[in-house]
């Protein structure tokens, strides 16, 4: 990082934090702290929804995902627009009519308090863990840039986020996210432009697209019906639909964003805006990853993008790393020569030569993948406690090694501010749920000042929990997958109990409570003992809750007088 990079980084972060503080300074009551404000329009709410889901992990991890597996990850989002339509039509009008602060209040109205608090607890656990990852991802950036230990960068970033959220509350979160989305979009466009400008002098861009296609990186839609493949059209449409319904309908970090608005139409429009922009936005980030992959077909990639672990392995087992470096260099050189022949074949429109060169490139690429796998083995052998995975470092390494001065600082600022934005929304929701669903029922006579103090304290405590989890996040697989896997362990049963509340009029409170526990047990068994892709956990958890709630209602029927209150729900 040059002095200009530091200037851009410091200036951008100071502007965002200052703006958040400025917008949140009028927060003096518990209600304004917890809910936000009724003057927020649908585009502000919509951008806030997009920003809450698109954290630093999106920016760091999705390009790495595209580098490894191409555009297939986009299928994960296919259920999202359908979910937005269903929520806009069914759930948002009900939540508005009931004037809810948290989604879980609905469950007390429909079932009973212990079902409400059980589901609120599931939210607190899943979001608390995911928040840890949301701190860990940008801490990774700081560690790489500054060379500081990850423990320190995790703590520092966590502390900054906690202070900012505790001071600003939900209102500052929504306002700041608009500014942050503008910075993020600028950063993404700049990253794509730089990647293309680095490719173009080496290979015409049309041919670069051909090359990415020949290596399978443009295959976005998989129509196979296999359930053990993580991303297929069907997993995305059905599993993804359940995940997105649960995330946007039952996760307070999102519900709080659209319930902050005034009229119901603003919330509905905000969700539809998200349904329209999400797939193009994610596709664009994946395309940045494919561009980075294509660039590294033309210029030699590092032996591992995780430079810190590579250095440690080199110090421990120098001869083995050197041998792998030589094999890597030789394989890359032969692949580069094949790419030159491929380019010539494309220019000459020689289909036979093109196919032959493409086969050579694919073979060499397979060889390079094999070398990377051996590097990971050596890293693990050198330090058994090491985390040799490097897919989350790919985009970061590319930025640090190849971006011009100033732009590196901007992209690091984008990653950090996105992290603070998504994480502050999560911490704010965790604080709100703790107060509204647990503190308020336990202390019904609390004053407004006591509630505000409790909300600030709960937000700070959840921040500390998130930092604690961030310290162990290095043990996980690709971060974006880890976030969604954690969500999928809880979201199915959470969605199931809300659907039971909306559509299964006969289900009683006691049946709902035990059905949620059975749903969680089913998802836990699937995760532990089966190879089913995690997106299907959402479908399974939801189905088990709905089925068992109906069965359990036979044993624990709903009191006839309770159905009288149904019309209003």
């Amino acid at each position, binding site marked *: 990082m040059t002095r200009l990079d530091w200037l851009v980084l410091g200036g951008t972060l100071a502007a965002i934090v200052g703006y958040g503080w400025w917008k949140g300074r009028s927060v003096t009551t518990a209600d304004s702290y917890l809910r936000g404000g009724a003057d927020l329009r649908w585009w502000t709410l919509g951008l806030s929804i997009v920003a809450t889901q698109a954290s630093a992990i999106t920016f760091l991890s999705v390009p790495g995902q595209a580098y490894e597996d191409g555009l297939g990850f986009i299928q994960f989002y296919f259920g999202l627009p359908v979910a937005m339509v269903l929520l806009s039509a069914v759930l948002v009008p009900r939540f508005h*009519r009931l004037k809810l602060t948290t989604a879980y209040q609905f469950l007390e*109205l429909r079932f009973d*308090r*212990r079902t409400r608090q059980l589901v609120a607890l599931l939210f607190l656990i899943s979001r608390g863990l995911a928040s840890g990852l949301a701190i860990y991802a940008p801490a990774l950036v700081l560690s790489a840039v500054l060379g500081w230990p990850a423990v320190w960068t995790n703590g520092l970033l966590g502390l900054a986020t906690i202070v900012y959220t505790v001071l600003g509350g939900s209102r500052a979160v929504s306002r700041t996210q608009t500014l942050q989305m503008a910075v993020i979009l600028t950063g993404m466009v700049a990253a794509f432009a730089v990647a293309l400008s680095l490719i173009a002098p080496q290979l015409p861009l049309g041919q670069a697209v051909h090359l990415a296609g020949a290596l399978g990186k*443009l295959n976005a839609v998989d129509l196979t019906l296999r359930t053990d493949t993580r991303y297929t059209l069907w997993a995305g449409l059905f599993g993804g639909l359940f995940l997105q319904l649960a995330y946007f309908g039952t996760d307070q970090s999102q519900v709080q964003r659209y319930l902050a608005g005034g009229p*119901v139409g603003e919330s509905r429009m905000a969700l539809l805006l998200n349904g329209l922009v999400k797939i193009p936005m994610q596709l664009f980030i994946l395309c940045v990853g494919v561009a980075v992959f294509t660039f590294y077909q033309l210029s030699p990639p590092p032996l591992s993008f995780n430079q810190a672990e590579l250095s440690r392995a080199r110090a421990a087992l120098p001869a083995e790393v050197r041998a792998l470096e030589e094999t890597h260099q030789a394989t890359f050189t032969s692949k580069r020569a094949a790419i030159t022949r491929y380019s010539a074949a494309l220019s000459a429109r020689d289909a036979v030569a093109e196919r032959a060169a493409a086969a050579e490139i694919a073979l060499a690429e397979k060889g390079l993948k094999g070398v990377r796998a051996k590097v990971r083995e050596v890293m693990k052998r050198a330090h058994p406690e090491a985390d040799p995975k490097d897919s989350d470092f790919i985009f970061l390494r590319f930025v640090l090694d190849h971006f011009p001065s100033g732009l590196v600082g901007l992209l690091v600022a984008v990653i950090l501010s996105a992290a603070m934005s998504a994480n502050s929304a999560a911490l704010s929701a965790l604080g709100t749920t703790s107060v509204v669903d647990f503190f308020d029922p336990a202390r019904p006579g609390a004053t407004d000042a006591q509630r505000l103090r409790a909300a600030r304290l709960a937000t700070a405590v959840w921040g500390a929990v998130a930092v604690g989890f961030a310290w162990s996040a290095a043990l996980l697989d690709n971060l974006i997958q880890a976030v969604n896997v954690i969500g999928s362990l809880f979201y199915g049963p959470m969605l199931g109990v809300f659907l039971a509340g909306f559509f299964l009029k006969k289900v009683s*409170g006691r049946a709902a409570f035990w059905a949620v526990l059975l749903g969680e047990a089913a998802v836990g068994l699937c995760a532990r003992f089966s190879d089913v892709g995690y997106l299907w956990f959402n479908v399974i958890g939801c189905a088990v809750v709905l089925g068992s709630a109906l069965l359990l209602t036979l044993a624990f029927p709903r*009191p006839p007088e309770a159905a009288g209150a149904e019309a209003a729900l």
Partner: protein
Amino acid sequence: VGSEPGANPAQDGSATVSAPAEPRPPLGAWPRLYAVVLGMLALEIALLKLLPSLLTPAP
């Protein structure tokens, strides 16, 4: 504001939030907006499926 755990507040009126009964608003332009969102999704899936052959036609 509170109620005994396990009780149904919709039944005994002790819920922390009330459930006012209001008439449902007319549908208005919402069905058309939903059709736009779902139509865009169908278009995106079709384009993405065809993407490799669209971007990399055989010479």
